[in-house]
């Protein structure tokens, strides 16, 4: 037998060492996150253009968002990043129980975020602030206000989609952890999923001030 077979069973045939495999996976995830930045970047560019064109209407529309719910959600997500770090740390130190507990906590926090987000969206529905035929806006320039809400729904919707995918990935990890697939020597999937989870959080860290906070001082 060659030395390859003596390495960890998680080592795929085309890598020479476990270290090379981990390096490749980590780099792959970072590049994927770069593509995600470019993906959201198109929306951020659109937001920048229209906010610069229509600052007053954007400020007024921004005041329609619930800053309390948005703020709570920000705290929830930041806390979920903390539990995600603990999950990675548990994997590194070989604590299967710690890993599973923290994965479950992270997923629950993600669900809390989505539920709160759902209430916010529902409120917009009730208020006729969903872009489309039923859109209704009291103030001047309803078209421009609708643009704000189009961007709001596109950006938070895409973000929420990423949260759903993230929770899916974490449940897969939970299953793998339960089956005892991870060890001190092999926890790359937990590590890369952590990168993804933090990335989704960071997107929100940009969305929250841009959508909720930036028009506040125009209030009244």
């Amino acid at each position, binding site marked *: 037998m060659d030395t390859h077979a003596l390495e960890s069973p998680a080592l*795929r*045939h*085309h*890598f*020479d060492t476990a270290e*090379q495999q981990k*390096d*490749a996976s980590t*780099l*792959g995830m970072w*590049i*994927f996150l*770069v*593509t*995600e930045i*470019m*993906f*959201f*970047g*198109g*929306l951020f*560019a*659109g937001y920048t*253009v*229209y906010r610069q*064109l*229509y600052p007053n209407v954007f400020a007024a529309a921004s005041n329609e968002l619930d800053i309390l719910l948005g703020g709570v959600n920000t705290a929830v997500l930041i806390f979920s990043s903390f539990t995600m770090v603990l999950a990675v740390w548990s994997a590194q130190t070989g604590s299967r129980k710690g890993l599973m507990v923290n994965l479950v906590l992270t997923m629950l926090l993600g669900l809390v975020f989505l539920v709160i987000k759902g209430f916010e969206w529902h409120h917009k529905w009730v208020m006729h602030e969903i*872009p*489309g*035929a039923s859109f209704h806006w009291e103030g001047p*320039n309803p*078209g*421009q206000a*609708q*643009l704000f809400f*189009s*961007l709001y*729904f*596109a950006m938070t919707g895409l973000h929420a989609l990423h949260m759903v995918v993230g929770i899916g990935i974490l449940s897969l990890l939970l299953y793998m952890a339960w089956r005892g697939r991870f060890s001190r020597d092999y926890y790359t999937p937990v590590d890369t999923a952590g990168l993804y989870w933090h990335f989704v959080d960071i997107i929100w860290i940009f969305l929250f001030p841009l959508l909720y906070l930036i028009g506040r001082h125009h209030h009244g």
Partner: protein
Amino acid sequence: MITATVEQKHYLNAEYGLKSWLLTTDHKRIGLLYLGTITFFFLLGGIFATLIRLELLTPPGDLTNSETYNKFFTLHGVIMVFFFLIPSIPATLGNFLIPMMVGARDLAFPKLNLLSWYLLLAGGLLSMWAMFAGGVDTGWTFYTPYSTTYSNTYVIATALGAFIAGFSSILTGLNFIVTIHRMRAPGLTWFRLPLFVWSHYAAALIMVLGTPVLAVTLVLVALERAFRIGIFDPALGGDPVLFQHLFWFYSHPAVYIMVLPGMGVISELVSTFSRRRVFGYGFVAFSSVAIAVYGFLVWGHHMFVSSQSVYASLVFSFLSFFVAIPSAIKVFNWTATLYKGSISYETPMLYAFGFIGLFTMGGLTGLFVATLGVDVHVHDTYFVVAHFHYIMVGGTLMAYLGGLHFWWPKMTGRMYPEGWAKLSALVIFLGFNLTFFPQFLLGYLGMPRRYHAYPDEFQVLHVLSTAGASVLAVGYLIPLVYLVWSLRYGKRATANPFGATGLEWKTSSPPPTYNFDVTPAVTHEAYDYRALAEEETEGVRVG
């Protein structure tokens, strides 16, 4: 008798059956899956090109009405750009060769690689469904507000097809970058890599950085069309020109996704068939990266007449001239490589010569359209059509065919028939020029693109172009026949039939499943023909 039938195990005969292909994670088999897929799309796109040229044979719109003609050129563009040119060289040759050139057993993420192929297939099938359901007439550019508000055709389905194919491209690019960073064989430093690998690295950067922007833009087009969210609708405060900015932010660099891998192929061919190290290796390597970087800064040159500010246009014009520098560096260095080389004229080299000439013409006419005043005159005319066909067909497709012939023995274990191959290379070169050179003249005289009828005085040039397209079609069909023929009747290929230096030639043809019996160690620079000769004489002495 028994000894005669014992055949060496390689990636093609390691397993048999449909499942062994559809579920394969071997980069070489996936490369062949791509080869089949994009050949199909090339023929499909070619059918629409034929219909376009037939309609333009006579001045009045007599073959079809204008609506149907709009669908013809849209489907030709969508299929050729998103389902043939973008995947062409990277997904077939790149997929097959990059792991071998870096001395690895596979790409870094083999399953992801298979997923990329399925994504391209799914995107292609969705777009084809849209085509049969009623087609699409927006042009491959999906310009708003026509695509979002006015078109009555299958815009969303087609855009979704391109969106899905985009993820195929993203994952391929990601796979290449990680592989080139992390999987190189011992001793294979960055500056010992074949230039093919450098140019694919540069193209992969664009795939990874540009394609997501197209993806989100197409999502916005679909949302706008489905829900009238207003983002590109001036009636609701939106800006259709924003679409053009987002679209060209990807679609201009996408030209370099198409042509950079082709340049990589040409570097290999020019070196191999003149038996010289590529002149100015470092410059050629870095010019690929420079093209990828500058490529992201010139998108506004598509929008000189779309109400973009004059100052922005000035900057975009200047930067577009700037891209010519790294492109010219490549052309000059290939030419310098030939100087005092032992040049031989096998088929791949004929394609390489074709590429250098046609790419130079495409590039120089690019300078015409990058010039603000000239562009106002030739914008949206056949001059632009001819310009980008010189780059995409004269450049990318010539390189693709040259590369396909060059590595065909490696991929299939069989030689192509040299006589027929040379003939078809010549037919393609002549047919290409006859098709597209008259279009420069037509455009300069004022023939607009995307019109199905035209004044009588343009007919002579249009007839020449259509005649050229017929010659070109014959030129493409000949290789299709003899390459398939060679799979069974071609002469068996040796490991290194062209005396080339890359690692891919150090293993048998076709290669074993894991490419190399022993991971190779690299001790010399790329294109070191003296080292190759020494190794061969040593091999004779030992063996």
